[in-house]
């Protein structure tokens, strides 16, 4: 029994049980937070030990779940990366949660929240360790269930229950699909252990391999939030408490990526090139749809949720490139693409959870998420504003932070595809590159809006005006993540080989891991391009310092005069004259009108006396939620129609019931007569 593994179980266990037993209040929250931090640290230590050390850790408990070959854990490098992700985020979210949950003191049961949060982290940590189908599914469904209860903590908010319902339904459908995929694999395997599945997968017919891959893609894609199956994400994440949505967006959707890699890469050992093409297509679609809908959102947490869909799309583009190159036997390029995708997943975990925690402290201070009622928070919440800015820079992919480095790596990993001779690859890569660039640009625009409208200019509501800074533990949580964003960016040269090592060896990926540059300069193994994030950052700082010094010395000695913002001679400036988030996104809504199909309705009620004076104007604009309206709504109505038809069977008349019975008897008897054999 590995020490770290025991510590991790102990940590989360203590947190969960402690939270349940303690009578709420600071002590209860303390225990829960302590459990999360302890468990997270142990998980991180275990994953680093396996990731760097390379020795896979196994643990068999045959007595439990003996119906399907017992409870089996085996942590290899691939699983270790994702376990590290969970550990990495558990610590800041735990620290953050300690104060954030204080606001729930009277209204919701903190004991349930603390316990469920620790169980959520425990099950999420055990998913990458599972080594047979039932353990994997048990932990997977446990993760979904605990996160469902966490989403339901604020049960008296109007649409929380609907959001939780959508979420559980989608995850259950996803589980069913993944279960089918696993079981087809396990059909002719003796036991359901992953080792046997690997051998059984070799003997599967290509048609079956494709079915398993597609089932895994659908099942794990719904958890990752890939476009056709993403509708739960923008509903469930905002409904959950912020540090929970940080964990969900940061880590849980990455476990969908883990599931796909485990089945597609490890168990099936790669497949034909069209797998990659399909992934790239879906990734590109998710990226564009995600960022476009994020731009139009006025609810801060929904904006971040949609941007998670976008970033997962980028990760899937990386994965798709990996599978594509694997299909074309360009294994070196495939390894680089996979490593870039994992690296972006890591970075996204860091900056997305930072942004969610920032949004959480905004919510904590102003009790509202609607950006049109925020503004000027940089004065009330200076620390939160600074951390949110760091997150916004990272997610917009601007140097020198980690978002830029991983997007640069994604670009560079797509490049060899453009040169490859295979027919369909070059146009697909060009599409992927242009989508990558478009989403980067739009993400930058989106996060200028998110940061600018929420934190800068004049507060648009009294709540925003008298907002106060978040407590210390929340700032510490955000601080840890902000530092992580910076460090991951600068330490890319060290991180990439470790990620490549996590994937090497499985599915014909080359074992001697290629170098990603040396010292400070990061370069592609194919020598295609070089750059050094550390030196760029250093240069920026130096030049800013120099500029500041020169201005300080040579510019005028006049003190800075503060006066009102210039407004073409108007007398007073009210917040209503500012640009709101809808206004900020209006040009882009017009540009992409084909996709949004915005409906505008303007209702003006004039002054009773004369038509030239207006009492109030109300402008409402809705954009078309494509997938909800044209994919899910028809599905729900059809099921409802069938159920009305079936309900008519139970019509209440005893005669009808007896007729069913007789029909069944006569039917079976005729069956017997007609087909005696």
């Amino acid at each position, binding site marked *: 029994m590995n020490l770290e593994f025991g510590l991790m179980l102990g940590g989360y266990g203590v947190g969960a049980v402690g939270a349940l037993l303690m009578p709420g209040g600071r002590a209860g929250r303390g225990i829960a937070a302590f459990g999360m931090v302890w468990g997270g640290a142990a998980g991180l230590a275990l994953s680093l030990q396996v990731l760097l050390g390379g020795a896979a850790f196994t643990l068999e408990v045959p007595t439990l779940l003996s119906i399907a070959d017992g409870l089996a854990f085996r942590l290899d490098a691939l699983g270790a990366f994702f376990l590290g992700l969970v550990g990495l985020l558990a610590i800041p979210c735990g620290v953050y949660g300690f104060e954030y949950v204080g606001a729930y003191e009277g209204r919701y049961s903190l004991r349930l929240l603390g316990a469920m949060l620790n169980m959520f982290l425990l099950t999420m940590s055990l998913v990458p360790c599972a080594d047979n189908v039932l353990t994997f599914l048990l932990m997977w469904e446990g993760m979904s269930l605990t996160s469902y209860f966490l989403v339901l903590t604020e049960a008296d908010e109007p649409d929380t229950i609907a959001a939780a319902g959508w979420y559980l339904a989608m995850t259950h459908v996803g589980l069913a699909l993944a279960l089918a995929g696993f079981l087809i694999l396990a059909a002719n395997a003796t036991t359901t252990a992953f080792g046997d599945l690997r051998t059984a997968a070799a003997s599967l017919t290509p048609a079956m391999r494709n079915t398993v891959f597609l089932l895994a893609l659908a099942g794990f894609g719904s958890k990752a939030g890939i476009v056709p199956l993403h509708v739960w994400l923008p509903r469930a994440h905002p409904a959950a408490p912020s540090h929970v949505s940080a964990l969900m967006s940061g880590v849980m959707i990455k476990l969908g990526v883990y599931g796909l890699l485990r089945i597609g890469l490890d168990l099936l050992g790669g497949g034909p090139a069209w797998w990659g093409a399909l992934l790239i297509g879906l990734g590109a679609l998710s990226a564009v749809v995600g960022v476009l809908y994020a731009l139009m959102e006025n609810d801060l947490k929904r904006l971040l949720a949609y941007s998670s869909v976008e970033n997962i799309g980028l990760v899937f583009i990386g994965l798709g490139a990996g599978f594509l190159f694997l299909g074309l036997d360009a294994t070196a390029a495939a390894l680089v693409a996979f490593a870039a995708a994992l690296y972006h997943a890591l970075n996204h975990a860091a900056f997305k959870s930072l942004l969610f925690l920032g949004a959480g402290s905004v919510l904590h201070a102003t009790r509202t998420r609607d950006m049109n009622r925020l503004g*000027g928070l*940089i*004065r009330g919440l200076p620390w939160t*504003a600074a951390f949110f*800015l760091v997150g916004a820079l990272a997610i917009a992919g*601007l*140097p020198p932070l980690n978002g*830029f480095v991983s997007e*640069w790596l994604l*670009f560079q990993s797509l*490049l060899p595809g453009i*040169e490859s001779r295979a027919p369909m690859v070059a146009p697909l890569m*060009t599409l992927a*590159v*242009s989508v*990558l*660039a*478009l989403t980067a*640009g739009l993400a*930058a*625009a989106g996060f*200028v809006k998110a*940061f*600018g*409208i929420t934190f*800068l*200019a004049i507060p648009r509501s009294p709540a925003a005006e008298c907002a106060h800074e978040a407590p210390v533990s929340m700032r510490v949580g955000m601080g840890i993540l902000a530092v992580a964003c910076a460090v991951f960016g600068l330490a890319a040269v060290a991180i990439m080989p470790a990620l490549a090592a996590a994937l090497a060896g499985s599915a014909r990926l080359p074992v001697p891991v290629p170098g990603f540059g040396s010292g400070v*300069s990061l*370069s592609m193994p194919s*020598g295609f*391009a*070089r*750059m*050094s994030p550390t*030196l*760029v950052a250093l*240069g920026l700082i130096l*030049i*800013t310092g120099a500029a*500041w010094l020169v201005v300080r010395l040579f*510019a*005028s000695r*006049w003190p800075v*005069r*503060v*006066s*009102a*913002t*210039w*407004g073409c001679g108007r007398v007073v*400036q009210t*917040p209503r*004259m*500012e*640009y709101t988030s809808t206004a*900020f*996104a*209006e040009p*882009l809504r017009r*540009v992409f009108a084909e996709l949004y199909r915005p409906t505008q309705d303007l209702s003006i009620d004039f002054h009773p006396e004369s038509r030239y004076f207006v009492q109030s104007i109300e402008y409402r604009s809705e954009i078309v939620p494509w997938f909800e309206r044209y994919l899910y709504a028809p599905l729900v109505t059809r099921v409802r129609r069938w159920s009305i038809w079936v309900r008519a069977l139970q019509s209440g008349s005893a005669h009808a019931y007896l007729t069913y019975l007789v029909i069944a008897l006569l039917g079976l008897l005729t069956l017997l007569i007609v087909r005696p054999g």
Partner: protein
Amino acid sequence: MGYVLEVAQAALALALAPGLAGLIRWLKARLQNRRGAPVWQPYWELAKLFQKEVVVSSNASWLFRAAPFIVFASTTAVTFLVPILAVPLPFDGLGDLLVVVYLLLLSTFFLSLGGLDPGSPFGGMGASREMTVAALAEPTVALAIFALALAAGSTNLGQIVARTMADPGAFLSPGHLLAFGALFIVTLAETGRLPIDNPATHLELTMIHEAMVLEYSGRYLALIEWAAAVKLFIFFALLGNLFIPWGVSVVLTPTTVAVAVASLLVKLVVLAAVVAVLETRIAKLRLFRVPELLSVSFVLALLAVTSSFLLK
């Protein structure tokens, strides 16, 4: 030795940039039969602005004051990476064309935030339009880069220039021409030249770049104006040296450096003339026609990429 040239190159860029802007303004005035302000007028403006008093809005936060420095720093950082005079520069390993593009996006990002901060409608309008144009220009820039990278086998600027210098026929290859066209349109969009944004006027409906900097004054405005001029200089240098690299010194001797400076000046003057003529000939596009222009440039870049890997 290389490092000295690197700093010199950056200093040259900083020095020449306002002059370039002044040259374009002067050429436009001459084309409109006006005497126009002398070419070095922008230098006087910058000197004046540095001395003038700074007025800051009461709504603005620390970001409003930090933004000009970051904008200026990120633009000047780019001048170290772009091959203005010589090619195998020690800093070439620091960043390739993607880093250049993203540094410029960083400066636009902070400029927009600076515009939003005072809370005036002009700032908001400018920021929103600037980010829209920047976002739509991104895919074109990325594809144009890849067209060049395919031909040169790497996205590092030094290698692109060296490779294009190596075989003269490359310039006339369709990939290059299309990429040049695409990048030219993007230059007009990014630096706020006429068809997209009118640098001369302060008319609310038309200005994008000016609207963001409306609130700035004194030394902050000077930094921002200078950064805008340097950005223009960078784009012209990129257009010049990446596509017509002859004259960039490969082996570092005083003569080749002199030749490099001369060729650089000639290219800049020619490009300035082209832009000036263009700005006097065509009127400003309505803002919601700008995406059509950018999609034209995107199609050009797409054709550039397809032609480069079809011919390979």
